[in-house]
């Protein structure tokens, strides 16, 4: 299979996956007896008013019609509103009537915060996890190894919200080193952006790095016993290079796979972290949307999260090919 064929096959797969997710989400919220129009209708809500709102939101239609409209909107764009016209250009992932904004706008408002948490935390836990695992594997069965592994088990065993609250207590209130909540956009103040994100990063990283440390350690133990490591040493390479270029390179393959998934999920909204640290991101938006039965926003966000996961999956598979030429496609 050529790279092009492979890519088009996978992209088609992504489209199918997203379609399935859209259908399932629509159907799911249609099963809910909740009526979003009533929540949007205000106080007091008369029958006449309700009917107007229903029509305006399109929820008077059966779910498959709504779904059809939604999908059509993605491809061709659509308009909302009854007495005013709200344009939602293609690709239109829906419109939140409660927030008077297109889902695309809402996502682009909220995504920087989520992306900041996700990317920073991901880098932090990847780096600390891999380094920890590496050190543990090189000092196998030593005190250092046992220490790192115990610490990592502690990480695995801690729910992320507990970690979050604990770091807030320690660094925010007891030591008063860092702000404990909120998000400052990078454009406004890079320094504040950083200081506000350190605690979320640390708490996510503490919980996730553990997995990476364990994975790296076991892979390194495996790889460092392989023949080509001996070859590299026999060439006269410095030990650091042997470990870094020849050992770690292969040991990181499974790490990359897990990382791709984790990053995808994190980018789709770090629900709990955002909640604990009061960061307005995709995750908290989703929770709010669910609470308000804002169906279009829910579907839009779900699709967005799913899109991130599956695209990152594809990306990781491609990166995998670079790291390991044996599985390279094309």
């Amino acid at each position, binding site marked *: 299979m050529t790279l092009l064929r492979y890519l088009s096959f996978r992209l088609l797969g992504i489209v199918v996956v997203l379609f399935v997710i859209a259908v399932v989400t629509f159907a799911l919220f249609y099963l*809910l*007896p*909740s*009526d*979003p129009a*009533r*929540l*949007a*209708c*205000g*106080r*007091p*809500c*008369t*029958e006449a*008013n*309700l009917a*107007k*709102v229903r*029509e*305006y939101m399109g929820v008077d239609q059966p779910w498959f019609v709504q779904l059809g409209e939604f999908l059509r909107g993605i491809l061709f764009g659509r308009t909302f*509103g*009854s*007495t*005013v016209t*709200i344009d939602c250009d293609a690709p239109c992932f829906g419109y939140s*009537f*409660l*927030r*008077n*904004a297109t889902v695309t*706008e809402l996502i682009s*408002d*909220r995504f920087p915060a989520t992306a900041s948490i996700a990317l920073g935390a991901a880098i932090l836990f990847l780096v600390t996890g891999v380094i920890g695992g590496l050190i543990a594997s090189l000092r196998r069965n030593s005190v250092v190894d046992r220490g790192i592994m115990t610490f990592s088990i502690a990480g695995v065993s801690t729910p992320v919200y507990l970690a979050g609250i604990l770091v*807030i207590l320690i660094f*925010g*209130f007891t030591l*008063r080193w860092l*702000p*404990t*909540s*909120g*998000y*400052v*956009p990078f454009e406004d103040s890079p320094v*504040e952006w950083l*200081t506000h994100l350190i605690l979320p990063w640390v708490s996510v990283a503490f919980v996730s790095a553990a997995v990476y440390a364990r994975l790296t350690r076991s892979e390194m133990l495996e790889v460092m016993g392989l023949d080509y490591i001996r070859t590299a040493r026999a060439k006269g390479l410095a030990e650091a290079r042997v470990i870094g270029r020849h050992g770690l390179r292969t040991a990181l393959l499974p790490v990359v796979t897990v990382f791709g998934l984790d990053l995808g999920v994190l980018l789709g909204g770090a629900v709990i972290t955002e*909640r*604990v*640290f*009061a960061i*307005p*991101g995709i995750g*908290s*938006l989703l929770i*709010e949307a*669910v*609470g*308000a*039965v804002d169906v279009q926003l829910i579907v839009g966000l779900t699709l967005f999260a799913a899109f991130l996961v599956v695209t990152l999956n594809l990306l990781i598979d491609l990166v995998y090919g670079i790291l390991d030429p044996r599985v390279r496609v094309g």
Partner: protein
Amino acid sequence: ITGCTAGGGDTGDGEQTLYILSTDTTLGWDPAINVNFPSTWEGLIARRLTTWKVTDSGVEVVPDLATDTGTVSEDGLSWTYTLKDGIEFEDGTPITSADIKYGVERTYSPDLAGGLHYHQSLIQGGDSYAGPFDGAELDGIETPDDKTIVFHLTTSYGDWPWLAAMNAFAPVPVGEGTDLAAYDEQPIASGPYRIESNVAGSETVFVRNEHWDQSTDEVRTAGPDKIVIRQSQNPSTTAQSLISDTGDAKTSINAYPLSAAELALVNADPSAQERLVTSDGGMLYYVALNNDSPTLSNPLVRQAVQYATDRAAIVLAQGGDQAAVAATTLIPGGIAGHEDFDLYPEDVDKAKELLAEAGYPDGVTLNLWVANEDTAAAEALQQGLARADITVNINPLDIGVMYGDAMGGNPDYDMFLSYWIGDYPSANSYISLMFDSAYIDGGYNLSRTNDAAVDEAMHAAIAETDPDQAASDWTAIDKQIMGLGSMLPLYLTRNSYLGGSDVEPFTIPGYPPFPDFTTLSLAG
């Protein structure tokens, strides 16, 4: 950086900033859909015909853009207001009666659902009106000249003066606000502040509106130079930083009341305790007993539930008398028409007897819907009822889903625990929306009370324009409804706020149980 910059709200040039720490994640400011009280945030940017003056004892309606609180015609069907001189929008254009009319008209647009709609069917022609965006006008509002505005009602309405103080009666320049998203983010201000920036989920920044004239405004004091509403704040960290009282926290205040755990934290810190302000009353927590439920349709069972309720435990589970007071009536203290009575003093044996009489000698099982954040009250209720062999299955739900379900044609609950606070301080706003049979499906009549006598009495009381007569009417209705047993009031919250040390002392009445942000000021 929160907690790191020294010197409170004073920035270099002596500018004072008040920080309001809110858990909200999106704040919209379009007056057509904003449901803030006139004395809270929206009141800072949007003036209206009349507004609230909040004092220790309560709240009264006072003129705002209008010169008086309105004159009613003989038949009670038309209200006339005259506008003051020297009132301007933030861009300097004068505010005219047409702007007010346009503002009210906007609320009729289905594109702007979600606000408070008390006025909508009251104003003539409102039932068939769909907003001004396609050029139509609302016949029931007359603007003979730039300074005068007349509202023609379909029926006389005693609470009308309260309605005219609502956000819907704030002016919007004619023709503006058609880009709904943009206007919600940054409406054109008429109050002492205008919105400088508004980042959803992050913060809204209010700065002084140069075109607001203090001499035209008898309520607002506009103390701080700048007000920042920090959104998406975590309540627990909010409390912690207010207690610590360093940096920005010195000029900060929480927007929503402290919880029991946060109160305990404050109590542990004497210096914070001094700054704590607590209202005498607040939101009414209640349980609606579903009259359509197979078990609770029997009034005896409803009464048994009433008698078995352990209010003391419930109140303590909220954090004790510092956080709540037991409530046994519908109309809370501080609202005209309130009278203290308890038709069902706690009596477990009596509850058992009633159950036996109703044909349930071995007890009953009831389900209870409750919002995720209110399960503590539900559990305390549950253990109280358990004493009378009433088993309660708690079903915690997301609050939106809960209401969406209950009002959306799936009232599959026996009991429904929630809270209520009137949109204005009138017994009407506490009772009619919750017990009028017209609001059974789709409205807030969650107990599904369908009693012709109650309906009739309420309609009479609503039309009553004499305040004293209305008050005594409502007291009677309160007793009447409590007699049906379909409503179980639990407690009134006592709302606690913690201001930073640079926030000038303030008080909070039982209604509205929120700080009056329009008069809050900073030391220095």
